[in-house]
């Protein structure tokens, strides 16, 4: 079975984002960029499935600028077998639906048994691509997975839902999106980093798949969240209740 893992190049989770002075977006100049952490979990899960013998090949795919090659190399260094970059212009915004369309086209070509993606990207937190992709492909989906078990031609996914855990069994091929607790991604080993250099990485363009990536949404303004004013300490519960009442929240 082949597993397709879409990965996104995003601002590193350690970096505190800064809004551009004109409010047009987040300043990405010379900011450390990394693989979206949920996607890392997806890659890790695919590798584990392969290590268990449930998968035979892992293809990482990314939609992004030329530099997204680095992100794909990271996936390759972790253990993916090959990679596809659908390259867009540096700085171009590709909206979730366009990404999902491209991924559908890639999936049509690759015919994976399973697509594992991160549940959302930490830059825009849309949480849409996985779901859209499943719909476009007309395949079952298991989102927010905290456990994934392949059983024959089905996959059992444990989902983290508001009320607790939900387990669903999907017929393959299917789409799974990962949640935080699914696994802990490995560190790429040095030999694998070096091997990754020679693993195949194909570069394509949206036009190759006949997908129009022109944005349909317009960003009006990006602003930092208001600075929270400092809290106050109260000596006991009674005072706290009194205070809350005073502020009109209780």
């Amino acid at each position, binding site marked *: 079975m082949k597993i397709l893992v879409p990965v996104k190049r995003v601002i590193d989770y350690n970096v505190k984002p800064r809004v551009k002075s004109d409010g047009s977006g987040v300043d990405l100049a010379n900011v*450390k960029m990394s693989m979206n952490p949920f996607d890392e979990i997806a890659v890790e899960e695919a590798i584990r499935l392969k290590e268990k013998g449930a998968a035979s090949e892992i293809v990482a795919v990314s939609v992004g600028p030329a530099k997204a*090659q680095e992100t794909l*190399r*990271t996936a390759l260094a972790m253990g993916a077998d090959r990679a596809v970059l659908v390259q867009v212009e540096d700085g171009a915004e590709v909206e979730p639906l366009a990404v999902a369309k491209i991924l559908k086209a890639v999936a049509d070509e690759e015919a994976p048994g399973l697509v594992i993606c991160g549940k959302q990207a930490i830059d825009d937190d849309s949480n849409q691509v996985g779901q859209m992709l499943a719909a476009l492909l007309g395949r079952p989906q298991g989102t927010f997975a905290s456990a994934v078990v392949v059983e024959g031609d089905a996959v059992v996914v444990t989902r983290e839902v508001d009320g607790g855990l939900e387990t669903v069994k999907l017929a393959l091929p299917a789409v799974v999106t990962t949640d935080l607790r699914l696994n802990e991604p490995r560190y*790429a080993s*040095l030999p694998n*980093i070096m091997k990754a250099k020679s693993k195949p990485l194909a570069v394509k363009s949206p036009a190759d798949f006949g997908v129009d990536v022109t944005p349909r949404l317009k960003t009006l303004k990006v602003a930092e969240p208001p600075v929270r004013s400092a809290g106050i300490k109260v000596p006991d519960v009674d005072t706290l209740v009194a205070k809350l009442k005073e502020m009109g929240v209780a």
Partner: protein
Amino acid sequence: MQVYDAPLRDMRFVLNELYSDDGFGALPIHAEFTPDLTDAILEEAAKFCREVLLPLNRPGDEEGCHLENGVVRTPAGFIEAYKAFAEGGWTSLASSPEWGGQGVPEAVGKLVEEMICSANLSFGLYPGLTHGAVCAIEGHASDALKAAYLPKLVSGEWAGTMCLTEPHCGTDLGLLRTRAVPQDDGSYKVSGAKIFISAGEHDLTGNIVHLVLARLPDAPPGIKGISLFLVPKFLPKEDGTPGPRNGVTCAAIEHKMGLKASATCQMLFDNATGWLVGEPHKGMAAMFTMMNAERLSVGIQGLGVGEAAYQSAVWYAKDRLQGRSLAGAKYPDKPADPIIVHPDVRRMLMTMRAYNEGCRALSGWVARALDAEAHSPDPEVRKRASDFVALMTPVVKALFTDLASDSANLAIQCYGGHGYIRESGVEQYARDARITMIYEGTNGVQALDLVGRKLGANMGRYLRSFFHPVSQFIEENNVDGPMKPMVEGLARAFGALQLSTATIAQRGMKDPEEAGAASADYLRLLGLVAMGYCFAKSTKIAGLKLFFGAEDKAFYDAKIKTATYFFERILPQATASFLAIKAGKTSMMALADDAF
């Protein structure tokens, strides 16, 4: 708080930008390791250091190592971290692919070493010593010993040590007493006591391979009668796996000022089975292969600690709100300004920063020379590179570790009272850094090595590998323009260095004590000039990048500002060193021994 994130941007600058013309020519090994590959290596190493090693640093310091029933227990988490480290292939980073290593250039390997030492110096010692042992075995041991031990050492499955020091002899190894008696089967029985053995015993690996200096029965007295032996903790079985326990035991572990998570052991060898490495009585030569490599590594250790101390100090200087800027409030919305606004805090931060960047640039040059020495197809280049490494080894060792101690102390100072209490974590840097000035030959011994063995040898040939590039740089760049003050400053310091060199060569020939009296100041002077050269070169490159509109403007801008600080506030110390050298030994030696 201990804060560390590998300075990857500066590392990439040193690796990819600074030495496009290092004079050693293009090396195939550097071409093979393209920037995108080395980026991936450095990033992964940085991640491992930040996420795995750094969190163990302070707990390891608090917990320390424990000796129970002859077994040394490393602090909690070390076993798992070591396992992940070895599995990640980091133990074999710079080792030869012949033995399962990755063959990564030293230019990259030294940067990774720095990160490990920043994150957790105690941890770094375990694989660090193994690497030293690998070098000695690879360079001098028989093919059979290589085949039996190198793959397991390179993979990190086993660890190595260097057993030199004995209770009555450290610097003067000619006095050592450990004996080795030849056996009929070609092995030897080694007996004696060794102290200060880093990683002599621990629970990280399945076997520990000791490289032991000892005397054969027919050995001439003194330093010329010392041989090197390989003595494993467990004797390998036919299939190569650890077999019966050898006569090597850990009698005690030292209670140290710092570096507490590294086990420093007293080792007893009681008729332990061992094998000769290299020729009889030529053990010092074999050991020096290892020692020279280790000396460079100790310099890198210093740099690593210096960087961690700096980052922790920067974090605090931005976090700690106290008083207002002398120029009026800078952060009026806050109850007080962060202390980074104060000139004296700036002085400390800039000094640390300049030390670290200067040392990193210099070590990058030396690392490239190591690569050229090993890989250049041109014998002339190999010789020049080897000269440069020989000259710079004592400088890197002593200068970097001196400065690291300074940095650690400055970091504590930035923290004020909080720096003095353990919870802040910065006092650990001062304690850890302190040993780097001592082991692998004290910094005094390094200075003597520089003036005694390196300065005058072959009519000063070693010096050429450094003096000529500097002289050429000064001549080529001594033109009107923004760099003029810097080049003039470098030229002044270089002139003082030339004059000091000639003076020491002249006086030292007549009176070795004069060379000894000048040695420490001379090492510092040479080190300052070397850092100055690196900064001037960095400034030139940064200036060009800015001129041609590079995107990473902030980095280059900061580089030039740091370099300017170095030239204005640190390099003037060269004059002080020069004056001290000029003064000669008289006042140093005047007071009678009894008057002390």
